[in-house]
């Protein structure tokens, strides 16, 4: 089984070509270059695009724009290549790269995305229950290193590979392949305008 996996939810987008569990190629880039990186990864792996049998894509949470780029690429690829796709949470992929660690993604606006009781959630870094001595990975952990380390958490160095949601993990975690139309992004926040309407602040 040949799986093309990619994730564009965070600043470091990743691509991997995995066949029967063996990583044939893996790359990192910016989200806007994702298709370029897919092309390069397939060439590096010696896999024709028509030989791709499954897609695995990161569903976030992360940057809304980056996340959408990955999902629209997956949906369109699935349609054009006629292959099934599966979504994998970017938090789950990060966690899979560092067993035992807590994944923390920068949610902008002074907040983080993380897993709480296995559920993706958004909260202020100060509200994350830090376990002294335990490991925190992801661009949010790097950004809020001070907050986490002050309370005894451990954050690997900025250049550590542990902070990257490597797409090999998406390929490994992907299950329940099906129509790409079902793949939903994990936004975890409603748009500001919707909040304004609900709070009665926006008058039309």
């Amino acid at each position, binding site marked *: 089984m040949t799986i093309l996996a990619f994730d564009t939810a965070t600043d470091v987008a990743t691509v991997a070509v995995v066949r029967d569990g063996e990583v044939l190629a893996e790359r990192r880039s910016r989200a*806007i*270059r*994702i*298709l*370029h990186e897919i*092309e390069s990864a397939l060439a590096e792996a010696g896999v024709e*695009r028509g030989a791709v049998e499954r897609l695995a894509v990161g569903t976030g949470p992360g940057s*809304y*724009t980056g996340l*959408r*780029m990955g*999902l*629209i*690429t997956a*949906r*369109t*690829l699935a*349609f*054009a*290549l006629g292959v099934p796709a599966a979504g994998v949470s970017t938090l789950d992929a990060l966690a899979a790269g560092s067993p035992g660690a807590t994944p923390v993604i920068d949610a902008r606006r002074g907040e983080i995305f993380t897993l709480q009781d296995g559920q993706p959630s958004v909260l202020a870094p100060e509200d994350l229950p830090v376990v002294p001595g335990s490991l925190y990975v992801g661009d949010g952990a790097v950004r809020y290193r001070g907050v986490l380390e002050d309370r005894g958490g451990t954050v690997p160095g900025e250049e550590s590979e542990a902070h990257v949601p490597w797409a090999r993990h998406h390929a490994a975690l992907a299950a329940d392949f099906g129509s*790409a*139309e079902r793949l939903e*992004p994990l*936004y975890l926040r409603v*748009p*500001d*305008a*919707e909040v*304004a*309407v609900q709070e009665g602040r*926006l008058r*039309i």
Partner: protein
Amino acid sequence: MILGLETSCDETAAALVTADGEVRANVVASQAELHARYGGVVPEVASRRHLELVAPVVERALADAGAGLADVDAVAVTRGPGLIGALLVGLSAAKTLAWSRRLPLVPVDHLHGHVASLFLEPGSVEPPFLCLLATGGHTLLLDVQDRAGYRVVGTTLDDAAGEAFDKGARLLGLGYPGGAAIDRLARAGDPEAFSLPVARVPGFDFSFSGLKTALVYAVRALEAGELERRRADLAASYQRAIVRALVGRTRAAAEALGAQKVAVVGGVASNSELRESLADAELAPLALCTDNAAMIASAARFATAIPFPDYLALDAYASAA
């Protein structure tokens, strides 16, 4: 056939157009109802919806044309100007479709797309002509010498004409989108009932912000309860002022530039009073006035195609260069 995609604002659109300019499919999924609750287009809401709609809209267009991806020779897509997050959804989809089948990609300027709505069959308009392009985001006078581009000879210094319609509709309590609502109500009103002046600016430029202010004062001057009774008169007078400004500037520019032909494109070109006032001009077909992908595919016939795979890292742009 050219497969066109358009996602620059709040319409998700796909179309199939032949090299001769014949429209085989033209699918537009409007998000207007979705944005009505916010009183205008919300970029983040639009981007989320585009993600959901692009693939179904493309599939629908192919089905309408009785075609498959194998029948597509090039993919055209709006690169800008527009909402950057919304543009990126369409651009990513277009790149992926083109890449999957090793097709060329044609990035299209959205404004060129509106002009190219005149180059579709039947009834393609031959340049040269002076083109009034009036939408919710732009109000431009364009000197169109050939089908590949245009030269801007006038623009709005503040609000776009379509924006003026939307703001006026909001002041009159007509909701969003405002253009069609004002057009409808204006038919029951007296366009000379209120004097709403449009600022005169030098050259061939437009200014509509003063008009909106004049409407604010006109509404305020009415006694409570009177607004309801005079709403149609206000709508008619307001529409008359916008149309007068558009027509006046267009005719003046055509005369100054010696243009033999005048054309009107964009969402505001669907306004009935504007169409009547410029009945002698080439008017974009009603179905092609508001954003659609047929016009994008049409423009692609006269734009530069990027061969596979040179477009993989292509970016979108939010504002006109």
